[in-house]
Every structure is written in C-alpha cells, then in structure tokens.
C-alpha cells in the first residue's frame, strides 16, 4: 500500500461544484433533524408509494428511533467526509468520479436505513455493495485494489442473495413485505420457516458486517482512499449488517438459535480482530481490525434481549461511529502530511500538526474508553450488558480482552505518532488544511460533548431501544454510575491495556510468529476462486466441445428423455387403431421406402429420389384426408426442393459415411428413441378427446365475417393475415440471404 501521490500543493484548487456533495449531505442532515422531535416523541414518520402492487411490494420509507440514529450518522459523517475528501482528493485525475460514487453510496445507505419494505431494503442493500465495490476499486490501476474490490463485492453480494431468499421466505411466512406489519405481528420465532429464514438473513448480515468467518474482506477493503475507509468501512456500510440484525431483532430474535449464533460469531470476531489489530504496524490496518472488533461487539450484544444488552449495542454503535470515523480521518491527515502510515516511521508530530493531534487525542480517548468521553459510557454499558448475556463470564472476559486490546491500539494510533521522538517520514510533515481538520475535530469534540452531556444521546437510544427494538425501557447513560462491577472492570481494562501497550513490540512478534503458522483466510479465498475457475473451465470443456454433432446428439437425447419421461410419468391411455384403407397403408409403405432410400450413403441421386418420394407420399396423405390446399403446396415445395438439390449436387462432393460402427449404433439408438417418442406422443394426443371450438369458430365465421367458402384460405389471408405476412417476410429474407451467401466471392474466405 502506498500513500496517495497527490498533494494539495500540486493540484489545482477544486471548484465550487465539489462542495455540492458536502452541501447535499448537510442539507439531508438538516432535513432529517426536522424528524427528531416527532420521532423522539414516539411518532415514527412514514411515506409510502405502491411500487409493484401486483407483487405486494411497496416503496415504503419510515423513520423510527433506529433509522433516525443511522440516518443522522450517515448524513452527518457524510457531510464531514465529503468536505474532507474535497481537500484529500484534490488534484486527483478522477476527482469528480470519486464524488459521484461517494454521493451515490450515501443515498443508497440512507435508502437502506429508511426503507421499510423488505424488497426495497434488499435493493438498497445491493446498491451499497455495488457502490462500495466502485469505491474500494477506485484506484483501479492497482491490481490489489481490483482484487480487494472484487473480494468485497463477491462476499457481500453472495450474502445479499442469501438475504433476498431470506426476505422472500419472511414475506411468505408473515404474509407481507411491509416491515411495519411484520414487526407489528407476533414475530416469526414460532413459524415453521424460522430456521431457514434465520440462516439466510444471518448470512446476509454477517457478510455485510464482516463477522467471522466472513471477516477477511474488510481489512483488504482498506485499499480504498482513506475517506472511503472512514465513511463506508467503519462508520456506515459495514454497520448495515448490524442495522439489519437490530431491525429484525423483534421478529427473529430471542431464540436459542439467534442468541447462540450471534454470541459465538460476535465474540470470536471481536477477540480475533483485537489480536490481529495489535499485529499491524500500518495505522489504517490497525484501525480496520478494531472496526471488526467493534462490529463483533455490537453483534454480540444484539444476541441478547435484555434492555442492558440492547442499550449497550446501540450506544456502542454511536460511540464507535464517532471516534472511528475521526481516527480514520486523522490517519488520512497523517498520511497526507507525512507520506506514510507506518507507525514505526512516525513520532513527535504534535509540534507540526497540533490540531490533528488534538482531534486524535479526543477520538483516541473515546476509543480507549477514558472518562469523560462517551467512549467511557459505552464501555461501562458493555460491561453492564455482558452480565446479562450467557455465558456471562466468558462474554465478560472476551469483552474485557477486546477492550484492553482496543485501549492499546488507541494508544498506538492516537498517541504514538504525535508524541515521543521525531520520526523519519518520507517527506517534511505539514499540518492539514481546515477542510481536513473539520471532520476529525467535530467528531472528536462530539465524543466529549456527548460524554459530558449523556442526556443528549439518551433520548435517541431510548427511541431506538423502546421504539424499534420493542423493549419496555432502555438503560440509562451515565458518566458516573457508582462503584460497581463495570467500574472495576474499566479499571482492569486500563491496567491491562497499558501493559499491552508497553509490551506491544514483543507481543507483535509473538502474534505474527503464531499467526504465520496458521492457514490464512486470504490464501483460502484465492484457492476458492481458482477452484471455481478450474471447475468452470472443466465443465466448459466437457459441455462446450464446439462439435455440432455432439450438440445435436445432446439435443435429441434431451428431447427423447423429456418426451419419454413425460409419457412414462403421465402414462396416457393409448388407443391404437390400425383400421385404415389399404390405400393408406400402401402410401405409408411407399413413403417409408423413400425414407430408406434417403439413408443410402452411396448415391446422392437415390437420396434425392427418396426424399422426393417421401414428399409425394406425404402430399398424397394430405389429399386423402381432405387437405387439397396443403397437398398442392407440398407438391410444389417438394418439386422445388428436388430441383434445388439437383443444382446443388453439381457443386457439392459425394457423401462418405465416416461414422465408426459404434457411433452408428449409438446414433441409431438415439434416432430410434426419438422416433418412438414421436409416434407415442402422436398416439397419446389422438387418444385424447379433441377440442374443436376454434375450428368450429372458423367454420361458422369464415363466410359470415370474411365471405369466403374455402375455410383454410380464409384463415390464412383473413383471420391470420398478419401471420401470413410474416411468413412471406421470412421467405423473402431467406431468399435474399441465400442469394447474398452464394454471391459473395469465395476468395475472401479462409484458405
């Protein structure tokens, strides 16, 4: 990974137009803020439009407590990130494209959290996957970016497909795709389809929120530009999975399967991610793994159903979005100002980058969970909530370990680059401009303000926990909750965290040595893709041989199998009736003899004669059974065909039977089977009573409506005149085509 090559000194100043995305996000934030009083007052807003009424799918948007928190975070952080990116991406050759992608993502994400119809949620869900793909692969000239983008896309889109299946089952089980109705119902926990629904929905949510074992794509996604990492891959998109879990908690939650799966996935993700985070020396990678840890923690707490667990999940979600976006933006500013993100090369930056250092300190303190930041409150709630989860001791130990590791990583990211001796960055450090400072500073300060004034956040959490998650009450957010178990656990966190921070160099070596010996997920992913490609190549070589004869044989075999299979399954009553005039038998025999002649591999003249015989035999049958018009046409066509064949023979070589004996046997079996099926099918049809009502209509109407006495002619030129016209067009085009094919000079073809 290399630092972005653009610098704000080199590029031209971005025009006013590049402010529009930031202004749009700010305007959306303002508009959503108008929804705060009614929603916090307990009245969710709703807007709906019949999208596909025939399928019962509507475009429904609703704002309740949960949507409100998410949409404010998305639009608010969006505005700050867009402003930041205006400076960070200045001079980039695809500057405008970046903002289109980012704006498209923001709108998709807002749609996702505001939609209240399962299908609409799915559509927006996929839109966020697609825009995320575009943004991760933004530096598409690098193979690594393309690979990461594809990986993220395949993992999340595969989950998205599972989610769609889950949603369709949910719609079937609850009788509606409208989320409001589904959540108002009594839940799907007792439904027969509950287990498949749960598995499919969890697959979607876990892939999107990078839960173990689908966690590997998120650290790779860090090859996106830093504003994207700050916005998509920490504050918003990866939270879509936990959003969905929280959203569907009332309908799917509170069962053994739900609790067990979420606890296991969340706990494993949180602990593994914390250990991985400590291993990183790249600041951005370290932050990426702590994002995984946070997602794991939120998933873990959504496993529970107690007010404490759910309050902890929602509060920690807000806390994490604020400090993590800020820290990513800080890392971007460091990268921009020094040209590196390697922690080993950085130090003493507080002297040249004092404002960045302040923002980093604020956000880092919140991440470390120090008082009086909101991070402290979040951590206390995590401990309080973990007491209500089962197995509580295991959860508490896991959360303690994750928090202590996060404390250490916070020190590494927010403290280490700014203090201590001067580092050796690739170029002379400089402070970032105001646009790049506004975001981290505002978000860092919010962490402090919300910490001191926890009452500001409380109503939002209340609205989400009581309104959206259906709990009787939410736990309180208090800066000082008294001397209790969480308080002691916090002290233990700080002590353990400090130890880990001080011993991090030695730990890093140990962790790396251990992890390098374990099989990685990333190589496994590559093997999976390679295997898939090999399988695709193998089956293409088997099926797509490029040999027309094999395709034809396959077609005829399938025809025989489907016809024969249908006959075997339906077992129609066949009524063979061989009573026919001798003349008919004679004509039939004569026709079969013609067909036999056509099989002769030695004489083409015999072949043409045989085919002509068949044509005339068929024409005679038409005459006997009352179809003189058809017979006339048949005779003319057969004559013309024979003439054309005769002319063609002058230019074409003789025939040689090239098939081996075994091939001939095989083909004879196929031919016999198809012929047998044909006969049996016709017999099955004629054994069935005939519905003559269309014929009766033509018989009655051809004189009354079209004044014609020859019913067949009237059908062709009157009732089905357009079909006949189309038929003429086909013949005309065929003749033009044949003419063109024969006219083109042979010299231009391949020798």
């Amino acid at each position, binding site marked *: 990974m290399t630092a972005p090559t653009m610098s704000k000194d080199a590029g031209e100043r971005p025009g006013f137009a590049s402010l529009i995305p930031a202004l749009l996000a700010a305007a959306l934030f303002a508009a959503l803020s108008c929804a705060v009083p009614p929603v916090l007052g307990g009245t969710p807003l709703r807007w709906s439009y019949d999208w596909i009424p025939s399928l019962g799918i509507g475009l429904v948007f609703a704002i309740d407590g949960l949507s409100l928190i998410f949409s404010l975070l998305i639009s608010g952080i969006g505005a700050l990130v867009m402003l930041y990116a205006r400076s960070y991406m200045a001079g980039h050759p695809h500057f405008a494209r970046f903002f289109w992608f980012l704006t498209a993502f923001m709108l998709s994400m807002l749609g996702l959290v505001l939609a209240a119809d399962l299908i609409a949620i799915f559509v927006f869900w996929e839109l966020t996957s697609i825009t995320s793909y575009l943004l991760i692969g933004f530096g598409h000239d690098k193979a690594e970016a393309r690979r990461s983008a594809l990986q993220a896309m395949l993992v999340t889109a595969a989950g998205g497909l599972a989610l769609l299946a889950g949603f369709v089952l949910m719609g079937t089980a609850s009788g509606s795709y409208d989320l409001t109705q589904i959540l108002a119902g009594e839940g799907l926990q007792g439904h027969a389809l509950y287990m498949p629904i749960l598995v499919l929905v969890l697959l979607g949510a876990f892939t999107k929120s990078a839960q173990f074992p689908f966690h590997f794509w998120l650290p790779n996604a860090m090859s996106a530009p830093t504003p994207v990492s700050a916005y998509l891959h920490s504050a918003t998109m990866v939270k879509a999975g936990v959003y969905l879990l929280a959203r569907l908690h009332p309908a799917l939650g509170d069962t053994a399967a739900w609790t067990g799966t979420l606890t296991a996935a969340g706990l494993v993700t949180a602990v593994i991610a914390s250990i991985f985070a400590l291993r990183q020396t790249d600041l951005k990678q370290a932050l990426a793994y702590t994002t995984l840890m946070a997602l794991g923690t939120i998933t873990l707490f959504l496993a529970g159903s107690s007010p404490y667990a759910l309050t902890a999940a929602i509060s920690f979600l807000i806390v994490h979005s604020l400090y993590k976006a800020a820290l990513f933006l800080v890392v971007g500013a460091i990268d921009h100002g020094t040209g590196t993100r390697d922690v080993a090369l950085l130090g003493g930056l507080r002297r040249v980058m004092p404002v960045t250092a302040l923002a980093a300190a604020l956000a880092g303190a919140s991440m470390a969970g120090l008082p009086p930041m909101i991070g402290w409150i979040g951590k206390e709630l995590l401990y309080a909530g973990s007491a209500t989860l089962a197995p509580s001791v295991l959860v508490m130990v896991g959360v303690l370990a994750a928090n202590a590791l996060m404390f250490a990583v916070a020190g590494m990211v927010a403290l280490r680059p700014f203090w201590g001796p001067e580092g050796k960055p690739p170029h002379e450090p400089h402070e970032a401009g105001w646009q790049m400072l506004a975001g981290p500073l505002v978000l860092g300060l919010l962490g402090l303000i919300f910490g001191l004034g926890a009452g500001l956040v409380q109503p939002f959490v209340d609205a989400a926990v009581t309104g959206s998650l259906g709990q009787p009450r939410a736990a309180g957010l208090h800066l000082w909750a008294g001397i209790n178990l969480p308080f002691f656990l916090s002290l233990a966190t700080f002590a353990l965290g400090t130890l880990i921070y001080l011993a991090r160099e030695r730990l890093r070596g140990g962790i790396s040595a251990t992890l390098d010996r374990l099989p990685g997920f990333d190589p496994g992913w590559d093997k999976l893709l390679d295997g898939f490609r090999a399988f695709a190549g193998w089956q293409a070589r088997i099926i797509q041989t*490029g040999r027309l*004869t094999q395709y034809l*044989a396959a077609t005829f075999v399938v025809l025989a199998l489907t016809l024969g299979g249908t006959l075997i399954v339906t077992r129609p009553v066949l009524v063979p*009736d061989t*009573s*026919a005039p001798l003349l*008919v*038998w004679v004509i*039939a025999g004569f*026709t079969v003899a013609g067909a036999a002649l056509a099989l002769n591999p030695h004489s*083409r003249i015999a*072949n043409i004669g045989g085919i002509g015989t*068949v044509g005339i035999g*068929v024409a005679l*049958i038409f005459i006997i*059974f*009352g179809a003189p018009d058809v017979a006339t*046409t*048949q005779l003319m*066509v057969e004559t*013309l*065909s024979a003439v054309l*064949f005769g002319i*063609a023979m002058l*230019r074409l*070589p003789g*025939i*040689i*039977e*090239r*098939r081996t004996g075994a091939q001939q046997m095989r083909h*004879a079996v196929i*031919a016999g089977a*198809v*012929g*047998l*099926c*044909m*006969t049996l099918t*016709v*017999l099955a049809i*004629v054994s069935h009573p*005939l519905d003559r009502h*269309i*014929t009766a209509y033509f*018989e*009655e109407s*051809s004189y*009354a409506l079209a004044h014609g*006495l020859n019913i*067949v002619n009237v*059908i*062709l030129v009157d009732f089905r005149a357009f*079909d006949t016209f189309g038929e003429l067009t086909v*013949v005309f085009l*065929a*003749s033009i085509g*044949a*003419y063109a094919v024969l006219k083109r000079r042979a010299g231009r*073809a391949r020798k």
Partner: protein
Amino acid sequence: METVVALLSGLLTAAAVWLMLSGNLLRFLFGLLLLSNAVNLAIFAAGRLTEGAPPLLGADGALPGHEMANSLPQALLLTAIVIGFGLFAFALGLTIRAYRSFGHLEIDRMRLAEPEEGEK
C-alpha cells in the same frame, strides 16, 4: 387411421435424426427435410383425420351436413411448409457456401469460429 400416420411420422423422424447426426452437411439437409415432413404429419394427425371431406363451405356459407376435415391444422401446415422451405433454401445456400470456403462438408471440422485448443 391416425395410428398409421403416427407410425409413419415416427419412422420419418428416426430416419431424419439418423441423417442429421451423420456429420455431413448435405445429409444433415436431407434429415432436415424429412424431419419437417414428419412434424407436419404429426400436426396433421393431431387435428384428427377425416377422409375425403375438405373444409369447404356450400353456397352462401352453408355448413355441409357431414363432418369436415379440421381446417385449423391445415392452415398451420401451410405456413409450416412454406417457412420450412425458406429455411431449407437458405441452409442449402449456406452449405454450398461452406463447401466453397472449407473444401469439405464435415460439420465437426468446421472450426473457424472456435478453433480447437492448440490449433490456432
């Protein structure tokens, strides 16, 4: 009566499939013609066979007293025969053209668009 035609249709189909699988473009065309006759017979028989009573109305559109042959499959057959002929004529043109270009009529050796692996 339909049974005879059904048997005939099946036999023609079998002969047609045999010829179409032969790997020679000319014999494929023979098969195509036979197959189109076989299918036409099948459609004709499916509409039931009525001897010697073409679907013609009397003066002033009076329905004849006896049952007439089914007019619907006949109308379909007329279209099918003509379209089949168009297809055949075009395919014959292509066959002649292919022989001029490749110098042979072996279907499986015509690999201009999809060369076999290793043979570019």
